[in-house]
């Protein structure tokens, strides 16, 4: 959040609060492979990424722009 999405700390905490509530509020009724739903986690992460970059499928890799001089 802080780095790839360039969030400031307060925004990151705000998003984290919302995300953990979404993800951990409802444990699986039948815990199989994990106690919580990975689909909820995925949806929460994608929503944050979309909020910031406009595209939930944005690549992790930042080509060249990150290796240039940033002021």
């Amino acid at each position: 959040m802080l780095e790839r999405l360039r969030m400031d700390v307060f925004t990151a905490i705000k998003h984290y609060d919302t995300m953990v509530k979404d993800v951990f509020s409802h444990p699986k009724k039948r815990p199989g492979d994990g106690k919580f739903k990975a689909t909820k986690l995925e949806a929460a992460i994608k929503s944050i990424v979309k909020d910031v970059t406009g595209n939930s499928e944005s690549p992790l890799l930042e080509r060249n722009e990150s290796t240039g001089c940033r002021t």
Partner: protein
Amino acid sequence: MNLRVAGREYISFSSVYLVLHLFLSFVCAKNAHNMNIPILFRTYESHETHPECKIWEAARATSATPMFFKRIEIGRAQPFIDGGVGRNNPSWVVLDEANSLFGARPIGCLVSIGTGKVEAVSIRRPSFFQQIIPTDVIEALKAIATDCEDTHEHMLRLFAQLPTTYFRLNVEQGMERIKLSKWERLSKVEAHTAQYLRRKEVDKKLVLLGKIVAAPKARLTIEQLGMYNPHFQSGNGSSLLQCPLGPWNRSSTGWNASTVRHLWPPL
């Protein structure tokens, strides 16, 4: 964790991120097929880049704590799980990565930020918990806590002669009863953190850290650091085998020599 490497390059590492002022960062995960080596999902080009990996996939992989979430498949059906034991305090991974990126430059500072100390003794006996959470979760949490503190101890030894280079911030009390998934207790986490930050020694540390980050006194490269510490230069190569380096290759007989040499080539 922030790692400042001489001059203007600024690396910041919060929990699982490594960042330059250029915004270089990575998260750690493990390939479930090969648990020995941490896999780094980086935001920058490297010889091991995952070019097709998306932001959400990397975030999902590093969050896939066993028993909480199922694993995720990325790329050619490679299953990934959270970095887990051996990687919860990724100081070694950061040093190794910084060494390969900026090996020739002296290290300015390394800041490690923990998520709260969990004293093993404070975790109640499994019999009490068994109905709520399985014993193996308790064992896993204990292992994580121990693992983080072990790494911290190793860092303290590594940086013993460079006292203003390594900083660890970790809330020491109150976090032990807060489970990973207890989101409704976030206000308590905040309160404990605020209390920790108000402590005199922590406040002094933060002031010093501020000064160091603003003007690092870089003196040694990461490789020299390994040699600088008497613990690492007590003679022949065999002493290196006992060095607590590269914990991911720990075996029952000690530390894997090739990893140690990869990290800190002997004299």
